[in-house]
């Protein structure tokens, strides 16, 4: 009841906002063959407040504000079993065009680590929205100024690396990092990225591999120090984030002599068995979302890698990434 009432209100607002954005939306509307006829469920296979949840809510807001869709979008968190709950629901909703799922790395890691029966092939890939970066952070008061300092410390003492969840992306990076350094890292799992970065500010752990958006505010306030980014190239942002440094000033892991690279998928999927024109609708919707200033603002704030893919290219990327995760997790001994 309440859900329905508020949906209608969202719809009205969406139409109101639509007048503003009609220039953007009208030409596309004319060509569109299929459109949602019911409110669209936007499943987040993670808890409230995390990176995927934030992104889903920003998309929901953009769609409503710019009137990109006639039907409202309702964000639903299905975090149970490290996201398995959300993925299984999408898998079971064969042919339902009114459901989209935002994914993070747990699309690959959760089935591998827990044996819950699903893979990305059980869903219909729509679009890669962006890739999330990972940075090695230490407390600004720690003596480690570079990766080399950190490596020396990790070889002589046991360092504590905090991260989100267990046998998920943070721990995978942690294992690869320890191996590359030839040092010791004890992984301590927490519930969310925000909590992890505060634990580092409070010096309860020695390092984290937080996403930029999870730690940026503590970097700017001078509490944390970035050592390297786990990407093949430096981050794009050249705007000064602190007094002296921009995102682009952070060296890559490879520059610092560590062969560790990891990026996390932020992508959109649909239930299996949906029609091509329905996939095309959401592809178009996401393309328009990506053109809005709010989206660009989010990309800039979180220093995202703005690579985007659809169709066959996206499928090929997913296939490659899945086998890479299998190898990484096998090496770490995380397979169920």
């Amino acid at each position: 009841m309440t859900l329905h009432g508020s949906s209608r209100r969202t719809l009205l607002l969406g139409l109101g906002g639509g007048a503003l954005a009609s220039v953007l939306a009208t030409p596309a509307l004319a060509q569109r063959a299929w459109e949602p006829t019911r409110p669209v469920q936007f499943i987040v296979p993670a808890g409230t407040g995390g990176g995927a949840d934030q992104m889903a809510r920003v998309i929901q807001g953009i769609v409503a504000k710019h009137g990109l869709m006639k039907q409202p979008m309702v964000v639903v968190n299905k975090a149970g079993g490290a996201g398995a709950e959300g993925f299984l629901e999408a898998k079971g909703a064969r042919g339902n065009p009114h459901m989209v799922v935002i994914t993070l790395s747990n699309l690959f890691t959760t089935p591998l680590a827990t044996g819950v029966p699903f893979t990305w092939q059980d869903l219909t890939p729509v679009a890669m929205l962006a890739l999330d970066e990972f940075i090695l952070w230490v407390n600004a008061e720690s003596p480690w100024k570079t990766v080399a300092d950190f490596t020396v410390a990790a070889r002589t003492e046991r360092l504590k690396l905090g991260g989100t969840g267990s046998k998920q992306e943070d721990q995978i990076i942690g294992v690869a990092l320890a191996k590359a350094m030839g040092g010791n890292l004890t992984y301590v799992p927490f519930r969310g990225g925000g909590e992890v970065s505060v634990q580092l500010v409070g010096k309860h752990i020695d390092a984290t591999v937080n996403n930029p958006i999870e730690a940026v505010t503590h970097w700017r306030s001078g509490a944390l120090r970035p050592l390297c980014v786990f990407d093949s190239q430096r981050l794009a942002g050249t705007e000064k984030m602190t007094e002296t440094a921009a995102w682009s000033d952070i060296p890559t892991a490879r520059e610092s002599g560590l062969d560790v690279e990891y990026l996390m998928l932020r992508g959109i999927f649909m239930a299996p068995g949906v029609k091509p024109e329905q996939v095309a609708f959401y592809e178009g919707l996401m393309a328009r979302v990506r053109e809005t200033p709010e989206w660009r603002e989010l990309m800039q704030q979180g220093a995202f890698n703005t690579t985007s893919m659809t169709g066959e290219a996206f499928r090929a990327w997913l296939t490659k990434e899945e086998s890479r995760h299998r190898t990484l997790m096998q090496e770490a001994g995380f397979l169920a």
Partner: protein
Amino acid sequence: MEELGLLMQGFAVALEPQNMLLMLVGVVLGVLIGVLPGLGGANGIAILLPLTFAMPPVSAIIMLSCIYWGALFGGAITSILFNIPGEPWSVATTFDGYPMAQQGRAAEALTAAFTSSFVGAFVAIVMITFVAPVIAGFALRFGPPEFFAVMFLSFASFVGMSRGPALKTLMAMMLGFLLAAVGMDTVTGQLRMTFGSTEMIRGFDFLVAVIGLFGISEILCSIEDGLRFKGQRAKIDLKVVLRVWKTLPRHWFLAARSALIGCWMGITPAGATPASFMSYGVARRMAKDPSSFGKGRIEGVIAPETAAHAAGTSALLPMLTLGVPGSPTAAVLLGGLIMWGLQPGPMLFVEQKEFVWGLIASMYLGNIAGLIVVLVAVPWFAAILRVPFSIIAALILVVCAIGAFTVSNAEFDITLMLVFGVVGYVLKKLDYPLAPLVLALVLGDRTEEAFRQSLLISQGSLGVFFSNWLVSTIMALGIALLLWPALSWARGLLAGGVLRRPRPA
């Protein structure tokens, strides 16, 4: 005194007619959301969040935080009237609130609950206004060992709570721990006790269990007792508010202590639910006649409500200053901040002064608006009890079912709620206390997690729980509270022995 000037500017923003209207709308919506069990502040705000994206950030946060206040107030209503906690932190309110309603003192309990909510929240807001930066730094001291110590203290202050036999209390608590362990284990990333069922992956949500254990089982009991509510013939008018207010100043110390517990738990951030349990436990422990708790003591309403709202309010502080949500609702608000182009965290107070102080000013005004709205409505709420049971019971069942479904949009949870209802009924008949079960279910998971995180950090050494003054103090306090019943029993034995000696038969 820079704060005062900024606060005044904040009031100027919050008092704009448009923002005042949003405030009122927010409070009313919030009360409705709070009344529906399961919908909850977090879900309510999540649903309404997109509405606010077209507003200026200050107006948006004013409306959303007023929904939050409204939901905080509203949660107490169903707890007191029907023994169904609308929010997790209202569970402790049912212990004495519902017996009061059964004795025909529903209006009295509601007034006490609303007023103490207001007092708790107000204390927390004053604290946020003046000592925000200092307090926020304190939260940084809380790592896993400190967090476990706080949880341990919650359990310790609650031991001896229930009047049931010790063995039954223990069994109920163990059952709660067992249920809490189902689902994903954060530390190992493995599924536990799901038996291959996809529905079990979620684990047992605390609210689904509580709606069943308290609400449904209560309806079953009422049916057995003859299809009516006790205390339906209560006299209800607005004067009761004034009458109760006259008696409230007597409990100032209780309120102050509860508000302190609440603020502390909100900042750490352990949240409103442990705060309410801990405050109730301490109030009972410190009372001259602990056995009268759970039978309709007004103190049993004041303590948890004050603490829950102090915690709920101060939970916004770590969100604003550290970017860590102290409650699920705060987590959703956090998402909203980012959508409005604000980056929560230490820089917010520096770069977005107008926003922060507008929000703080709206906390004051929103709370006052909320108090007025709910107090005026007290007679109406209490009058619900006059509706014949055969009508209201059906409505409650429907609302409970909606609530259980809304928690995670799962039909299976409705079945689960009914199963918990039957379990609750059976446990009541067999005289097993439900409170320890609920406490273990709501805190068990986080406690276990903090314990194992601590041991990971210390590499298995228990010394980590006594490694600095903060964690040692909390642990020592917890152990003292844990041993209290044994100590007072021993003292009673000694005193008894002394008394008996002069008159040997």
